[in-house]
């Protein structure tokens, strides 16, 4: 793999971005139709999703081929690092919006509603709460069952992933593959357990602020776990194919950063959504 020394790498024109835009447009139209009970929503969503998957395969395939043919020099590698860091920062801000909603509800809106005796004479502030109007009682999620196990699972997976990385750096390919495999399996069991938890929940998305903050926060986190697991599966397949060198493996590191980020979000969820 000779490094490209000739300066900066600018890729040739590519169809993937416009394909991606088409995918997202179809998804948006499909969702609009579906949510408003109009015909054609589901098929449109399906088409959009198919195009999106096609685009992701095509685009990332191209990037991987370029990387493996040695066209990315040190500078490109640094660019990737910056971009991944800023991408994760944007994800942090996305989650902050929902954490903000949770804190706002707990610290401001629910206690404040309890002081509005003119409108809600019988409402008493407490958390979890489904607000002054929805009166049916519900049982909130307990921290020390499945969620605690899931915490352990994610923490362990962080460790196994780091172990896999050490393997890669030492050029111990078996350790790399094994570590990745275990991490992927842990990720999958996390998702399974969470699905189980959702299916047996005694409340729903529409159980007031508690229900919606709970499901939106854990739900978006769950989606991120699935995305992270998918990335790790790709990394596993690539390592099986012999990709990555001890010096040159940013894709692996990016997936690992992402995984750790998802990990940290979970810890916050565990503390603020389940436990306290």
């Amino acid at each position, binding site marked *: 793999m000779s490094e490209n020394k000739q300066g900066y790498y600018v890729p040739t024109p590519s169809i993937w971005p416009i394909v991606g835009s088409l995918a997202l447009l179809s998804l948006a139209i499909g969702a609009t139709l579906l949510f408003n009970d109009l015909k054609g929503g589901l098929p449109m969503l399906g088409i959009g999703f198919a195009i999106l998957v096609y685009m992701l395969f095509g685009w990332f395939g191209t990037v991987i081929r370029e990387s493996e043919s040695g066209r990315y020099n040190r500078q490109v590698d640094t660019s990737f690092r910056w971009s991944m860091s800023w991408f994760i920062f944007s994800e942090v801000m996305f989650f902050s919006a929902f954490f903000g909603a949770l804190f706002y509800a707990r610290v401001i809106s629910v206690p*404040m*509603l309890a002081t*509005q005796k*003119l*409108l*809600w004479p019988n409402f008493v502030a407490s958390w979890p709460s489904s607000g*002054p109007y929805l009166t049916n009682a519900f049982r909130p999620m307990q921290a020390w069952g499945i969620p605690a196990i899931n915490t352990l699972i994610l923490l362990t997976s962080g460790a196994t992933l780091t172990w896999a990385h050490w393997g890669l750096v030492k050029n111990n390919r078996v350790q790399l593959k094994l570590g990745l495999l275990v991490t992927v399996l842990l990720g999958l069991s996390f998702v399974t357990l969470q699905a189980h938890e959702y299916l047996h929940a005694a409340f729903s998305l529409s159980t007031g602020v508690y229900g919606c903050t709970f499901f939106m926060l854990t739900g978006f986190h769950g989606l991120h776990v699935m995305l992270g697991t998918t990335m790790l599966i790709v990394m596993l397949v690539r390592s099986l194919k012999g990709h990555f060198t001890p010096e040159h493996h940013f894709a692996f590191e990016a997936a690992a950063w992402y995984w750790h980020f998802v990990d940290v979000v979970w810890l916050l969820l565990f503390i603020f959504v389940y436990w306290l």
Partner: protein
Amino acid sequence: MLDKLVARTGGGVALMLASLSARADLQYNLQPPATNVASQIYNLHLMVLWVCLGIFVVVFGAMFYSILRHRKSLGHKAANFHENTLVEITWTVIPFIILMAMAYPASKTVLDMKNTSDADMTIKVTGYQWKWGYHYLGQGVNFFSNLSTPRSEIENLQTKDKHYLLEVDHPMVVPTGEKIKLLITSNDVIHGWYLPAFGIQQDAIPGFVKSVWFKVDEPGTYRGQCAQLCGKDHGFMPIVVKAVSPQDFTKWIQAQKAAVVTYNPNKTYTEAELVQHGAQVYAANCAACHQANGKGIPGAFPALDGDPIVNGPKAVHIETVLNGKGGRMPAWKDQLNDFDIASVITYERNSWGNHTGEAIQPAEVKALRK
């Protein structure tokens, strides 16, 4: 010291502007204040305006001097300085000091505005799409206040009244010289109770009650409007407050109590009686969305003319009106009494192309209230 200066310059400027605004609708400044808070705001605004004008003249005086003199066409050669720490610190510190001088009186007024304690009287104000409801707490008087400008003026078929869009059927009446506390809330979306002459603007937020206060000394009629975008008729929900002497106020309250319309809950009304009253209820409450001709607005508000619910079982129709539908059709159970609801339903079921021939009685509505 500062206050006096402000008041004096303020007065001078007001005079100057007053002479400028010989034409009735050329008003350059805030409305004449009618409360103490409003005049504090008036002076504060003038003070800041003058300070900003001063800074503007200094800064852009320098700039335009430079533009006039330091131009190439006059042969001016460019200097080459590009830094001066002392100057830079100065023009960071001076604005900071000016800002502190502005913040001080502003903070005082804020605290004044927030002081709602020791009120003589409390009125609950509720925003509805698109009218205001006033509830004199502890006095048993409550009523709705609708725009009273006729449609024909809005559609330019008739010359417009002097108080076009700023007139209502039932103004809020308050006594002068008393501290009045308003509890402001909303029934549907966010509205804004805005009365410029009192220096009050408070958003009406569904589910929460917010309080403001005022004390007005001059008897008179004060006008404002809903200030927060609240849908289609946001521009058509004015606020009118009539301040009268305490004696007149007592008379007014008495008259209100006496005028509460009664109906006989057990009487069986004829269709004609119900339709006649129902037409009024419909025009005041329903026509805003479903339109006077019952055709609604396609895509936004369903037509009631030929509508399956209106021509279907009575109970469903009554429950729809009582409890609302789909989050967009309001629930009317707290706003209208059984007679109003029975009438409006009878009206809907026997108007336009609907001919069910049914007369709904108040008792039937009562039975379906939860």
